[in-house]
């Protein structure tokens, strides 16, 4: 088991390195840099001005060198100009003596995630706060989604082909067919707009960042959960129907155990092994939903930051965000694998 986790961690690091390099490559293509220079400087810059601005900011170095500096395995660039020395590892121009005292390496490995040009703040602070907000959203999503999905799946799979099964299965198919931007829009239309007039909830979750309550937070949570819910419910249903036809269930029935007892004590445990992996693998999908819902409901979390960073080619923030999301994706895969082994006695003991 230890070796397994170690190997997976190794693969995870290699994957993260490859992915960040791809992001680095795409964000550092010349047209993107040109756009960056023009948004930072002014839009009427001549080509020479763009080049000199990029050169002054160390953006014209070869790609592997820049990537190495961002990682922290190569020393950050320094450049001596008329008003002192500028460099990657400190802000503004400084006299040569002070600049020499600054650290030479500043990258991810040194804990320096860089500086966001759009938010005018350190990337690590931005990611920290935004991730906290999204964590809150995700927590409530899981609280709502997992129990209801399992309940729907178990109820539907308990008696295959019954009316309950048919109606609950239809419901789960409809939810998997409704992407967040459709369900979110429909919810906003029905529950918040003045055109329908129900006005039960708020159409924006901006106030939920500080003070989340039912009125301003339920719709975004519901929107994300619904899309994932159907899939988990269908998996649970499939695994439940399979368990319900097993020999030991028939034995229990013939012994005269009551139906609720069979479901609760005999079937449920074995039926919940498969959905566990599905739930964990669902987390990366939720990340997608988070981006859409945060944009739709104007909730300024991680997904919103992603959209802002990507829309404005904020290179270092984008890299930070991709590192975090890659780690989240791979970590959930690891947990799902480990958990599957742990939950399933047939694998654990052999």
């Amino acid at each position, binding site marked *: 088991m230890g070796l397994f986790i170690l190997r997976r961690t190794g*693969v995870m690091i290699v*994957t993260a390195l*490859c*992915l960040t390099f791809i*992001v680095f490559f*795409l*964000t550092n*293509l*010349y*047209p*993107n840099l*040109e*756009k960056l220079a023009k948004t930072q400087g002014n839009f009427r810059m001549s080509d020479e001005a763009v080049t000199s601005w990029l050169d002054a900011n160390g953006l014209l170095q070869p790609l592997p060198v820049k990537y190495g500096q961002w990682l922290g395995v190569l020393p950050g660039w320094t450049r001596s100009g008329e008003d002192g020395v500028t460099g990657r590892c400190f802000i503004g121009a400084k006299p040569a003596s002070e600049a020499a005292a600054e650290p030479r390496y500043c990258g991810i490995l040194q804990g320096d995630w860089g500086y966001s040009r759009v938010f005018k703040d350190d990337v690590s602070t931005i990611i920290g706060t935004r991730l906290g907000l999204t964590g809150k959203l995700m927590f409530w999503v899981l609280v709502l989604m997992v129990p209801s999905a399992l309940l729907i799946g178990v109820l539907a799979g308990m008696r295959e082909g019954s009316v309950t099964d048919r109606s609950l299965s239809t419901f789960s*198919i*409809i939810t*998997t*067919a*409704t*992407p967040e*931007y*459709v369900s979110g*829009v*429909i919810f*906003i*239309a029905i529950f*918040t*707009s*003045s*055109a*329908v007039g129900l006005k039960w909830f708020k*159409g924006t979750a901006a106030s939920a960042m500080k003070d989340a309550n039912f009125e301003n937070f339920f719709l975004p949570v519901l929107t994300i959960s619904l899309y994932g819910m159907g899939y988990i419910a269908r998996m649970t249903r499939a695994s439940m129907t399979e368990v319900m036809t097993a020999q030991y269930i028939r034995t229990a029935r013939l012994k005269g155990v009551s139906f609720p007892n069979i479901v609760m004590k005999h079937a449920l445990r074995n039926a919940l092994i498969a959905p566990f992996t599905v739930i964990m693998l669902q987390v*990366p999908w939720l*990340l*997608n939903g988070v*981006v*859409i819902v945060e*944009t*739709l409901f104007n909730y300024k979390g991680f*997904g919103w930051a*992603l*959209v802002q960073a*990507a*829309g404005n*080619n904020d290179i270092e923030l*984008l890299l930070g*965000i*991709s590192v975090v*999301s*890659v780690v989240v*994706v*791979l970590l959930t895969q690891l947990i799902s694998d480990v958990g599957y082994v742990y939950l399933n006695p047939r694998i654990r003991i052999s």
Partner: protein
Amino acid sequence: MEPLTTSEIILRVLYQFTPVWIALVIVFAASIAFKRRLGLYGKLFDSPVGMIGFALVMFWVFTGIFGAMDLIVTHDPLAQVSGMKNKPPGTPLRSPGDGEYAWYLLGGDNLARDVFSRMVKGAWIVVQIAPLATMFAFMVGITLGLPAGFYGGRLDTALSFLANLILAFPVILLFYLLVTPEIIATGVPNYMATVLFVFPIVFAAVLLNSRFYTQPRFRTPLLIGVLGVMTWLYLSLISTGGYLVNTPAVSIPALPEILDLFDVSGGILVVFVSVVFVNSPTVFRIVRGLAMDIKTRDYVAAAQTRGEGPWYIMLWEILPNARGPLIVDFCLRIGYTTILLGTLGFFGLGLESESPDWGSTINEGRRLLSRYLHPVLPPALALLSMVLGLNLLADGLREESLKD
């Protein structure tokens, strides 16, 4: 003129769809009459779920096709009519010209365009791109997944690593990185298209060669014919204005303009490429898993004993036996691709902002959502019903293919 009442709107909308109804009735009558002779497709008409799904899907397919032929639409989806801004459904035009439809059936949007016509035209964009993109993704996934599952070993490790790499990317981040005007200017999508669109040719070449290589007299002309046509299509697809990539830095000449059959605009191409790119690794994983499972069967061992080559076994023994799950996944994946196209539109990526596709329309309408619902709901419900239809269709197919 008076505005239309709700029932009049419904009747008139249903009337506008007349060609679709006729086409649907013909398809269903023909299919049910001959369903015993139509294999899996015919069996679909034994399951009510499958039939509902098929009806929904075909409804939008016909809507797309007839919409593109200007049969259903009432107005030009891009034309702005004065005085119709944000008007509710059933509002009459102020001064309709001769032969012009006198009402906006589902109202006008923020720029005074007809919501109904835009929704119909939006169906055409989805019907054009989604199945084709899914098909390309399947070609890539099958061509790489079969050998990975069949041979295993290093090849499998390397390809699986690549697939997991793409899967670990948040889809929206990938879209934001790939589908921007700046990236289009560097020609990255063209390079990706060049690589991704080769796979159907490779697939066809290996498929035919492995089957007919014992009859060289038949195989050689067949291969020359098929590959010639496919290569021509491929070159027309990837070259624009005589160039593969034409940026200030690099320009690679490709097919001359005289031979170029059709041009795909940069926006559509990049959307297409990124959707294929996102879908392929999942298909790869499914095909790989199926190949690993099926290669242990007796009929594969029998083929090996017969002395068949590996590619024959993969493409003519394993692939046909994996068709059930693959067909089901194909339906589900078209639905997922539709959702992805909507996502792109929702973030305003790729297609031009005035394009009538459903995602962009939802994105435009959501800003005024608290006051005007009618521009947003039709495309939202259209997308929902189309994806739902595909899911139901997949369910029906799965049920029917498990029966035997």
